[in-house]
């Protein structure tokens, strides 16, 4: 009987442990690490089986508490959501290892608070990727957001202010989404995605209301995922968060929201609705994504801090994915979904590296990075792989999703999108090589021969707790890159017929 509930345990394990961590962590800090790692290890392990199960036996629907849909809350497990489940739990597991170390440095004595929020956030994300209920989605979205507000607010310096701005923007997004759900509810009387979809399909009239609902849902989600003109909150919030929170929030929050956008677009509404009946909107959004990619990439230029630079890259990557989905062809959509996976791993890799660097050097502004290749060779090697993935150098995974996206853009005839992608790759190359160059050279002034004997810098690697997840992620980047054919064929293509 475990088998049919396995995905629920994947979600429940972090949730149960969240409270256990808070309770037992009060007694002794020694409880925190085993509980967190145990729960997330179990989740990851379980998610692998769920994916395997779904791939062999096909997707299934699950009704919570045995209340049948559309009355009860329904969960849907198709290859896509199973893959996202695995992605979320893997990233969470890797991030938590590093977070355990960096939190004990940055927030000593508050580990149990931190990890309670951290685990609830993971449970919320796990729930988000599975849910098939429009209102449930809202609640889970807010659970993840509230925990994120808290985690970001725990940071030092400007963090509380950034977190507050995030609260305001995040709430606007959530409220818009809720309004959209309200319109849908008035139209259809149902909250179950599949049910709404059926009713909407047979609906006579009500075009304006449907479009309004759709617009509200989309704008709400775009605010949450920091799609370009609505991105203002993200750079501050993510760069001021504690390192331990950053490694979790940055890779997952925006990516899961993009996934939700795909769910809303294809499970509630239909491609026909978005791409055929509102072809003008479709064109417009691809244009906006192209502009988003370019603007965010250019904004990244002006940053003098590694983490802030990364946050602007995240905003650009959101443009990739939204644009890919709205290209309205299979290739673009496959690329966007593949990019969700890849981007999560790339961002994880870079943030883990940033967190390891910050642990040793105490800061991430460019001055702190000088001569790092000598000081932390392994960290920088992993960082370099992450950077290559962001630039899109094969065989790292970033190349392959970019390939699909460019191909999709070419197929759809959206050359502005193709140009934006190529340009952003070039900009990323410059951005990252600027950092690599800084880390490669020891000091500002030139060093000729002769000097090199005195400047023997001692190797000062980050602790293993920070290093191991980083190295694993870097290897994953290449492994996922090489297996992207399998991912596309066995997972993404399986879902696409449902969507188109």
């Amino acid at each position, binding site marked *: 009987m475990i088998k*049919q*509930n396995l995905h629920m345990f994947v979600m*429940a394990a972090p949730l*149960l442990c969240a*409270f256990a961590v808070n309770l037992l962590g*009060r007694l002794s800090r020694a409880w925190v690490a085993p509980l967190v790692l145990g729960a997330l290890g179990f989740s990851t392990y379980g998610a692998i089986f769920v994916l395997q199960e779904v791939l062999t036996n096909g997707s299934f629907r699950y*009704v919570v*508490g*045995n209340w049948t849909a559309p009355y009860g809350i329904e969960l849907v497990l198709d290859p896509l959501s199973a893959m996202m489940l695995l992605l979320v739990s893997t990233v969470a597991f890797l991030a938590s290892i590093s977070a355990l170390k960096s939190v004990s440095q940055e927030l000593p004595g508050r580990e149990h608070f931190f990890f309670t929020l951290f685990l609830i956030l993971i449970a919320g994300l796990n729930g988000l990727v599975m849910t098939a209920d429009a209102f449930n989605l809202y609640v889970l979205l807010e659970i993840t957001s509230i925990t994120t507000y808290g985690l970001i607010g725990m940071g030092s310096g400007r963090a509380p202010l950034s977190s507050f701005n995030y609260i305001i923007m995040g709430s606007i997004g959530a409220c818009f989404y809720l309004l959209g759900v309200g319109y849908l509810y008035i139209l259809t009387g149902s909250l179950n995605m599949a049910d709404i979809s059926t009713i909407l399909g047979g609906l006579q009239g009500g075009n304006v209301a449907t479009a309004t609902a759709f617009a509200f849902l989309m704008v709400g989600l775009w605010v949450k995922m920091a799609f370009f003109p609505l991105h203002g909150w993200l750079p501050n919030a993510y760069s001021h968060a504690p390192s331990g929170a950053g490694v979790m929030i940055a890779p997952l929050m925006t990516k899961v929201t993009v996934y939700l956008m795909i769910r809303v677009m294809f499970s509630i509404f239909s491609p026909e609705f978005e791409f055929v009946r509102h072809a003008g909107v479709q064109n417009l959004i691809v244009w906006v994504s192209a502009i988003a990619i370019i603007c965010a990439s250019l904004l990244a230029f002006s940053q003098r801090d590694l983490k802030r630079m990364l946050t602007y890259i995240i905003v650009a990557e959101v443009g990739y994915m939204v644009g890919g989905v709205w290209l309205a062809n299979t290739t673009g959509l496959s690329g966007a979904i593949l990019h969700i996976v890849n981007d999560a791993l790339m961002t994880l890799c870079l943030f883990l590296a940033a967190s390891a660097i910050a642990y040793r050097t105490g800061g991430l502004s460019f001055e702190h990075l000088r001569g790092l290749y000598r000081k932390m060779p392994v960290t920088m090697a992993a960082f370099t792989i992450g950077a290559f993935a962001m630039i899109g150098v094969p065989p790292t995974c970033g190349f392959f999703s970019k390939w699909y996206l460019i191909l999709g853009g070419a197929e759809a005839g959206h050359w502005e999108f193709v140009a934006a992608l190529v340009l952003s790759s070039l900009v990323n190359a410059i951005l990252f090589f600027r950092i690599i160059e800084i880390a490669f050279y020891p000091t500002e002034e030139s060093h000729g021969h002769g000097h090199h004997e005195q400047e023997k810098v001692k190797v000062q690697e980050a602790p293993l707790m920070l290093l191991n997840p980083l190295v694993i992620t870097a290897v994953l980047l290449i492994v996922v890159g090489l297996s992207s054919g399998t991912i596309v064929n066995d997972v993404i293509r399986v879902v696409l017929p449902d969507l188109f």
Partner: protein
Amino acid sequence: MKIIQDRAKTKQPGESLIIQTSVRILVPFIQLFGLYVIVHGHYSPGGGFQGGVVLGSAIILLAIAFDLKTTLGYLSERSNALMSNIGPLIYTGVAALAAVMGGLFLDYSALDVIIPLGPIEWRSMGIFLVEVGVGLAVMNIMLSLFWDVSSGGDMDEGL
């Protein structure tokens, strides 16, 4: 009564004697009502959230009428934190237990395996257990929200 009068004479924490006295008398009734709302929640209007809010507001009322230190005498910060964790733990625990016992998640009728009361009866019993958990959590979280926000987490200043 004597204590309150003494305290009113020596220092003035909070409101007047009349208010303080009436609050002292009211609080047990409010709490009783809160319990009623929780206990009846699974088959009549009410439930854990509402009952928890009522329970919590009873102690908040105390805090407003006296001061934060007084409320700490009723419910220490430590036990508050403990209970606000145990609440959700009960909730998710019951849900997971149902799944472990062979049903679907949150399908309480599966709990019949442990104590055979009949699946139908368990459905309402299960919800009751969940409501208790929710009630505990809501009460304590309401309270700690109030404590923390009014004193900034220090518990020594504020009202």
